[in-house]
């Protein structure tokens, strides 16, 4: 309940404040959001499988975001930033899909 409320509060803050993304963060923000989504989906799945640990969630959330940003940063330095961020998005997308499939099985038993 509290995490869902916090998510809503964050969305409302973003809508109300209308901040602009700093130029330095612009390549990393979408990747970081996708990585965080992966962590959230994993957390929901773990919750449904009753193995959720909030410390694990915090660590995985932060490390997901940091690793994704680091990979993209390295890719930018190596000149393959575009391809690597695509790769990161693909991998995270696959994970999100498999987590979503597990959630679906728990919710609908199908």
């Amino acid at each position, binding site marked *: 309940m509290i995490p869902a409320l916090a998510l809503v509060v964050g969305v409302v803050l973003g809508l109300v404040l209308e901040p602009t993304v700093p130029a330095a963060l*612009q390549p990393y923000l979408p990747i970081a959001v996708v990585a*965080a989504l992966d962590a959230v989906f994993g957390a929901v799945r773990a919750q449904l499988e009753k193995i959720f640990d909030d410390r694990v969630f915090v660590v995985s959330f932060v490390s997901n975001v940091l690793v994704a940003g680091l990979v993209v940063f390295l890719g930018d330095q190596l000149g393959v930033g575009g391809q690597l961020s695509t790769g990161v998005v693909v991998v995270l997308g696959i994970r999100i899909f498999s987590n979503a499939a597990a959630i679906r099985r728990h919710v609908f038993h199908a």
Partner: protein
Amino acid sequence: MNRPLCRRFLRPRLRRVDVAVAVLLAVLGFAAVVQVRSTQEDGPLATARQEDLVQILDELSNRNDRLRDEVSALERARAELTTGGDQSEAALAEARRRTQLLGILAGTVPARGPGLLLTITDPDGRITPDVLLDALEELRAAGAEAIQLEGPVDLSVDPSEASGGDSGGGGVSPALGDGDEGGGGVDGRALYPPYRFVVVGEPSTLASAVAIPGGVVDNIEQRGGRVLVEERDEVVVGALRALEEPRYARPAPQDGD
């Protein structure tokens, strides 16, 4: 650390980890909304990567160069066209000017200017065409630029108002020949006394030229005629002749033309 959802939500006191989770999710919602908004507002360029931007910039500058080339080519063409237009316009104006001058000489366009009216009466009928021809040659030698010979003129009318109803012969050398019935004829038209020369030229020069002893005036008065010489600030040689196409002569090429 596995516990049911309901028990955790009902727990009255928040642990640090719960706060961290809430903060992380709030940050996630915030970041997602910000990203979505910036993507919607800035269009595709804002989220494009550096190399993509460089490529887009290259394409743009290439197209810019091509368009700039096109602009300069079109400007050159326009400059050529306008200067060409100026040149042909100047040539046209020059051609018109020469047409006017040549037309005055040939008697195909009316001429006006200071000059002389020379009215000749012939009560005895002894003014022959060669007398008129002498007068004409005298006037031409004195610098007449356009000459009209008319007759008969109505002496009661102010000469400067009279239009050459029966006039003939414009230009500097009207064709003067024997008329059918004793009088003069100009350009194939018969003339009868009283005659009048309308002459464009320096008035005093022309007047003194006809007045020299043994000249035109003397000659006519010996034949019983009377000559009235009037210097005018402006006379109009309005009698025109048709331009005849030369039967044999053709323009010869000129150097530098």
